[in-house]
């Protein structure tokens, strides 16, 4: 369970870590939209190179980032299979009973796979390089205008921060409960899919009970530390944009423009077509 790394801060004090959290949050937001706009393989390659260079600069080891994919591996394969089976367009390459795989289906499924992978890796880069407190501060700063329409921005921000902070704690707890149930003869690893789901029940129930107990104690601890979401609150760390932040903004815009150009002027699609015809020819 310890290899589940999504959402855990990975301190290396790199250039990426030192960026203003607002910059990273805005970039991640733009990045997520852009990833959905990509239409060509060239676009994916370009985005992947960009992501790889960010990972490289952040000094977070690649294997750690790859691990974040592992958590959603099932989802990835599930979407891959569903898309292969049910997206029917273009030339049919394989047909057997109800199974009907088309060229368009293959193309679409692979792109979806790339898209989800890039999304998850990009999003986890944000949490690898940004502490939950920084994220909270950034979110609070960016959503500040909403306080005028009475949205409890600070409360929302602290809820998110605490949720992130408790991921490792709850993972550890899950592992403990699993070990305890295994010690009493629970069989978690074998059996059919449904049997295994059923075997999870004695793990989930104590986990929920303990999570609620934790929440109760945490609420007391917050009260004991005078938590209140008034304007009187101060901040130890003030957010400040630096040169690297401005450069990152320029980079983000360039990235967005390039991908949009590629998607709507079809430059990448043209190169894709060339590569495709070469593969088909061979």
């Amino acid at each position, binding site marked *: 369970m310890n290899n589940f790394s999504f959402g855990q801060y990975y301190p290396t004090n790199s250039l990426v870590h030192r960026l203003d959290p607002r910059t990273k949050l805005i970039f991640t937001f733009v990045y997520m939209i852009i990833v959905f706009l990509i239409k060509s393989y060239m676009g994916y390659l370009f985005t992947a190179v960009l992501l790889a260079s960010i990972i490289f600069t952040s000094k977070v080891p690649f294997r750690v980032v790859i691990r974040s994919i592992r958590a959603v591996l099932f989802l990835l394969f599930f979407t891959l299979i569903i898309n292969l089976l049910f997206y029917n367009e273009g030339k049919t390459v394989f047909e057997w009973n109800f199974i009907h795989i088309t060229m368009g289906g293959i193309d679409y499924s692979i792109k979806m796979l790339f898209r989800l992978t890039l999304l998850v890796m990009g999003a986890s880069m944000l949490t690898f390089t940004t*502490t939950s407190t920084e994220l909270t501060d950034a979110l609070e700063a960016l959503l500040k205008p909403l306080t005028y329409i009475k949205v409890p921005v600070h409360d929302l921000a602290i809820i998110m921060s605490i949720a992130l*902070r408790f991921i490792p704690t709850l993972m550890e707890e899950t592992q403990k409960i699993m070990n305890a149930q295994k010690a009493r003869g629970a069989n978690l690893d074998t059996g059919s899919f449904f049997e295994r789901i059923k075997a999870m029940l004695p793990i989930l129930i104590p986990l929920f009970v303990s999570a609620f107990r934790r929440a109760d104690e945490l609420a007391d601890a917050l009260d004991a*530390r*005078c938590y209140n979401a008034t304007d009187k609150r101060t901040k130890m760390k003030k957010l400040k944009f630096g040169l690297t932040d401005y450069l990152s903004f320029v980079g983000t815009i360039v990235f967005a423009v390039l991908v949009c150009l590629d998607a709507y002027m079809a430059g990448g699609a043209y190169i894709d077509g060339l590569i495709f015809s070469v593969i088909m020819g061979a």
Partner: protein
Amino acid sequence: MSAIELKNVSFSYVLSETEIVRAVRNVSLEIEEGSFVAIVGHNGSGKSTLAKLLNGLLIPDKGTVKVFGIDTKEKSTIYEVRKNVGMVFQNPDNQMVASIIEDDIAFGPENLGVKREEIVERVDWALSQVGMLEHKKGTPFKLSGGQKQRLAIAGIIAMKPKVLVLDESTAMLDPQGRAEVMRVAHELNKKEGMTVICITHYMEEALEADRLIVMSDGKVVLDNIPKLVFAQSKELLDYKLTVPLATQAAIELENLGISVGKDVMNKEELVERLCPLL
């Protein structure tokens, strides 16, 4: 001046219409400023409820709790109360709000609206008080229970409270962690003059206090310096509490007619008293 004053305080948990648990029954206490007070009692004796009454996490059904003259019932001054009475709980994991140590320590002072420069100073001060300054930029996940609990203390003392309440803060720790936390508490009491109220069920911890309060069934049943409380070991056993082994041995010896005194607290003292008799 007394730091905390409880007058005829009662508190009940209403579980259902027919089921009411009277956790604290008509307790009156005065906690002197600068003292180190231990409160012991078996499970369900009301000691943790009493702790929560001290900083207004619970409001008494009857009677009043005053912290430096401020009534905890008063909603408008509740933060003033909580600022003065810092509370550390049992599970260190459930008290941390941030995943970076310095951010977590800063949480309290930030809530109080302390100025930025002063928060930075307070964080360093609090961390050095508990001997964790070198972990300032790290995460708490890989630390031992004792270290995490010391951080929880740092998070509280960064608010500069006058009273520190440890609500069974050592219950989940190993012996080494317990010793670390108690050492920090005693240092804060001696060096910073902080009033410490330590709620525990470890008699060894109660030994070192200036004053020992024993609770049973929501009432204060014994309240004296530890030595004299332990001398009443028969009563302690009635309250389902055990006395330290050395004290127990001394009392048995006393019963056999060997006069070593009933106020023996530890092994060394017992040896000292026994040697002249040989």
